[in-house]
C-alpha cells in the first residue's frame, strides 16, 4: 500500500514539475513573439522627404504596387570581381501592366532570356540555347487577395514575396516589387536584428529618392519617394566598395503599354520543351 502511495506522490510531483518547466519554456518562447512590436504607418499619401521616418519608407515599400499600374523600365546589373576589379554588366528590360499581371522581361548577355506573361500563360525562352516553354500560369503566381500589410502582421513572421514579382526571370525583381524586402526589414527590425538609417536624398534617372542604409548586410537602397520602387541598390558586404549594383537607367510609370508586347513569339528556330526540361537539374537524371 505504501508503494502505491509513493508512486501516486511521485506522479503528482513529477507532473507538476513537468508543467512548471513547460510554462517556463513557453514564456521564453513567447518573449520572442514580435507581433506586438510591429507598428507600421499607413501607406504614405504624399512623397517621402528627408524628414520621413524609416518606418514610413518601409510602409511605402511594403505596398509599393499600390502606387502604379503600369511600368516600363530598364535596369543595369553590375557585378564587380573584387580581385581583378573587372565589372560585368547585364541589362534587364521590364514592361509591366495591370501591376505586373501582364509582364514582359528581356535580358541580354550570355544568360539572355525572354519572358512573357499574359492573361493565362507564361512563356520563357533561353535565347542563346534556343529553347522555350509555355504553360498555364501556376496559381501561386496569381494575386489572389495578396495583402502584405496583413501578412506582415499575421503571417507568422515569414516573408511573402509578391506573386507577380516572384515569377519574373531575374533575382532582382525584389527591387521593382520591394514588398518582400520591406517585410524582411520590418520583421527583423522588430526582433532587433536590423540597423536601418536614412542617409540622405538623391536623384536617380530624374526621380527623387531617399537613400536607405541596411547596415547589417551593408546594403544601400535608393527608394523612389513617390512609388517605393528601388531605383538603385548597392550590395557592399565586407568590401570597400559595392560588389553588386542594380540600377535603373530609365523608368516610366503609368504609361500605356501596347498589348502586343505581351504576346509571346519564340525566336526563329527555338525548340519548345517542357518546363521540367527547361529547369532541369542534375538530380532529374537520378
Amino acid at each position: 500500500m505504501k508503494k502505491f502511495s509513493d508512486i501516486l506522490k511521485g506522479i503528482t510531483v513529477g507532473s507538476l514539475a513537468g508543467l512548471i518547466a513547460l510554462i517556463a519554456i513557453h514564456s521564453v518562447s513567447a518573449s520572442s513573439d514580435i507581433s506586438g512590436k510591429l507598428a507600421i504607418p499607413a501607406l504614405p499619401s504624399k512623397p517621402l522627404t528627408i524628414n520621413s521616418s524609416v518606418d514610413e519608407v518601409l510602409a511605402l515599400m511594403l505596398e509599393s504596387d499600390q502606387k502604379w499600374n503600369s511600368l516600363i523600365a530598364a535596369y543595369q546589373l553590375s557585378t564587380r570581381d573584387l580581385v581583378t576589379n573587372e565589372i560585368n554588366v547585364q541589362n534587364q528590360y521590364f514592361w509591366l501592366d495591370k501591376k505586373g499581371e501582364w509582364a514582359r522581361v528581356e535580358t541580354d548577355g550570355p544568360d539572355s532570356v525572354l519572358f512573357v506573361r499574359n492573361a493565362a500563360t507564361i512563356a520563357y525562352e533561353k535565347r542563346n540555347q534556343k529553347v522555350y516553354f509555355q504553360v498555364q500560369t501556376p496559381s501561386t503566381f496569381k494575386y489572389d487577395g495578396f495583402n502584405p500589410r496583413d501578412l506582415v502582421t499575421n503571417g507568422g513572421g515569414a516573408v511573402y514575396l509578391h506573386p507577380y514579382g516572384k515569377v519574373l526571370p531575374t533575382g532582382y525583381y525584389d527591387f521593382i516589387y520591394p514588398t518582400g524586402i520591406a517585410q524582411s526589414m520590418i520583421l527583423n527590425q522588430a526582433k532587433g536584428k536590423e540597423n536601418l538609417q536614412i542617409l540622405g536624398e538623391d536623384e536617380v534617372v530624374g526621380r527623387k529618392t531617399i537613400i536607405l542604409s541596411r547596415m547589417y548586410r551593408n546594403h544601400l537602397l535608393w527608394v523612389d519617394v513617390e512609388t517605393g520602387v528601388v531605383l538603385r541598390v548597392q550590395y557592399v558586404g565586407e568590401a570597400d566598395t559595392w560588389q553588386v549594383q542594380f540600377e535603373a537607367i530609365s523608368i516610366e510609370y503609368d504609361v500605356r503599354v501596347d498589348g502586343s508586347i505581351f504576346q509571346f513569339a519564340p525566336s526563329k528556330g527555338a525548340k519548345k520543351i517542357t518546363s521540367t526540361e527547361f529547369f532541369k537539374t542534375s538530380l532529374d537524371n537520378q
Partner: protein
Amino acid sequence: MNRTFLLSGIISFVVVLTAMLPGISYATTGTYNYVNEKDSTYTSRSGSYTSVTTTGYPSSSKHAYQSTERTFTGPNNTMRWKCKTSYATEYNFHTYIAIPYNLGVLDGGYNYTAVNTNPSENFTTPINQENYTNDWVYIGWTKGKGGSTGCYVDTDNKELYGGGLDREFWVDHMKYWPNTSPTPPAYTHGW
C-alpha cells in the same frame, strides 16, 4: 525519499514534457548547412533538426513537417528537398525556405523549382538570398499527393547573373505544409 517515489516522479516529468513540448518546439533554434560550390561537399554541419509538429494548424491542414530528407550531388551541388509524406488525395503544399543569418561574403540569387504530382501547379522562382537573411520565405504552393519521389524542391548553386563571381550557397530548413486552402496556414515561424 524512496526509490519508487523518485522513479515515478522522473517518469511523469519526462512524459509530461515529451507529450506537450512539440507544440512549442518551433521556437527552438534551427541549424544550417554550408555548401561550398568549389568543393561540392558538405564542409560543416551542426546540431539536429527541430521536431515535427502538427499543433496549432487549422483542421483542414492534414499534416506539417520540416523536411530533413536532403540529398546533394557534385559538382553542381544541386539540393533536393523531398516531401516525406504521401496522401491518397491532392493537397496544396505550401512551401517555405529558411535562409539563415549570415554575414560577410555576398549571397546570390538561385532558382527554386517546386514539383508535385500534379504538374499544372509546379513552379520555379528565383530567390535572392542576399535580401532575406534570417528569414523564413514563403515561395508558393504546389498541388499533389506528396511523397518523396514526386514531391520536392530543387535548387542549385548556379547563381543567377553572377557574372562568374564565386558565391556562397546557404541551406537551412524547408517546410512543406499540405493544406486544402490556397492560402498559407496561419502559423508562427521560429528558428
